[in-house]
């Protein structure tokens, strides 16, 4: 078998097509992009946007989106953590990696992955129905501390449930949790007036907010967001800092060879910041906030610390 000449040919071709920028012998074949959720969600959707743009940055090789749902994303995450660290298996990395590693008996943790790039940050929001009786954040806080407020969450021990638990603990609030399975059902209950408020991501809330069917009480971020400039941050109203959000990024299994890691990071950076990709993401309602592997690692560590602090709350709540 004449493997070596073939490799040289591929490298030559690669060099020709991308202006001799990339020297390592990667990539040589299609790359599996594992989405640990069923088709139809935000992670799957953004994954397919990335796959659409991938051949340009990866010398004509495709990203093949593989949906591996199950176990609250455990199945797909386990698959990637055990896959060979050759750069041909990537994971659509979300904060659920941290949640799962801390709350379920799984065989991986944050160190089982090499974070490569972050492409989307989605701050949390507290929302209520447009015609709801809670006028603003102060009214919400008063109602929750004097009496109790019913809260729609997208599910038990999801990131948004944890957010609500943390807020309740910090401010001494009483919430009655109504657990759903998706943001869509949360919106349904909010608009129908069945619950008083909900915790969700800005990206999931922005459509109905623009339609005027729900209102944002507070944005759980450091500064106001240009998607919803009228929405005040939690800190503006109360003076206390309270930030929480979800993120979407890309990771490979741990133990990636250094040259492959450098190559992958560079190409992913090129892909995720390309004007075409940014434009498409914008059209679909997702802002691209690119950060490289190191910055992504930092964010992951920070989130893990935050989770560790809140974990006891989750256990006493259930």
């Amino acid at each position, binding site marked *: 078998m004449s493997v070596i000449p073939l490799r040289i040919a591929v490298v030559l071709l690669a060099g020709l097509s991308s202006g001799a920028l990339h020297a390592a012998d990667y990539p040589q074949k299609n790359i599996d992009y594992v989405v640990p959720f069923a088709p139809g969600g935000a992670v799957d959707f953004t994954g397919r946007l990335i796959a659409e743009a991938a051949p340009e940055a990866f010398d004509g090789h495709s990203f*093949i989106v593989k949906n591996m749902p199950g176990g609250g994303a455990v199945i797909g995450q386990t698959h990637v953590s055990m896959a060979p660290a050759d750069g041909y298996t990537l994971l659509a990395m979300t904060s659920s990696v941290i949640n799962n590693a801390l709350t379920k008996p799984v065989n991986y943790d944050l160190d089982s992955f090499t974070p490569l790039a972050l492409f989307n940050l989605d701050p949390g929001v507290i929302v209520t129905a447009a015609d709801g009786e809670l006028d603003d954040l102060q009214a919400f806080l008063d109602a929750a501390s004097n009496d109790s407020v019913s809260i729609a969450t997208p599910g038990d021990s999801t990131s948004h449930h944890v957010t609500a638990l943390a807020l309740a603990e910090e401010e001494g609030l009483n919430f009655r949790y109504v657990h759903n399975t998706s943001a869509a059902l949360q919106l349904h209950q909010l608009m129908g007036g069945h619950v008083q408020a909900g915790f969700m991501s800005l990206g999931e809330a922005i459509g109905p907010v623009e339609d005027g069917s729900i209102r944002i009480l507070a944005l759980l971020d450091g500064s106001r967001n240009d998607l919803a400039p009228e929405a005040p941050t939690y800190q503006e109203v109360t003076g206390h800092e309270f930030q929480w959000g979800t993120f979407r990024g890309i990771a490979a299994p741990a133990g990636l060879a250094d040259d492959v890691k450098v190559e992958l990071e560079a190409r992913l950076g090129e892909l995720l910041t390309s004007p075409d990709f940014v434009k498409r993401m914008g059209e679909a309602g997702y802002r691209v906030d690119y950060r490289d592997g190191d910055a992504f690692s930092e964010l992951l560590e920070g989130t893990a610390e935050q989770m560790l602090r809140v974990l006891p709350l989750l256990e006493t709540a259930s």
Partner: protein
Amino acid sequence: MTQRRLFALSSHWLDRGLSLVCLALGAGVLMIAKGYPTSAGALPMILGWLLMGCGIGLWLFPGKRADMRNVRIGGLLWGMAVFVAVLWLFASLGADVALFVLFVGCAVLSGYPPGLRLVATALLFVILVGAIFGGLLGVPLPGPVFALFSA
């Protein structure tokens, strides 16, 4: 050809057998669900009791329609053996090889004459499946041959 029948039981007693399975299952559920916290255990506990009730009901009023005659148990067992082998092939070698074995195995087990004709049909069919799933629908299947479709 000699045929082995799966149980010579009458339908009456088949239903009673089912009712015993039901009772055992209900008891098992009750035993396991007892250890669960209240909110998680409530519905399984109810189901366990209802299953027990259902088992008793079925024992008292068995039907007459259950039918285990004309079941060739050899065919079933061989089928299972092929399926398990194919499952292993699916995970280790890839979908294309596994599906080929599955097609040939199933056809031979149900009495199709083995030969070149069957091999050709199986090859054609497997390639068609790969083309529909990998090529047309973009659902990638693993395997050395199927890899060509998703590229």
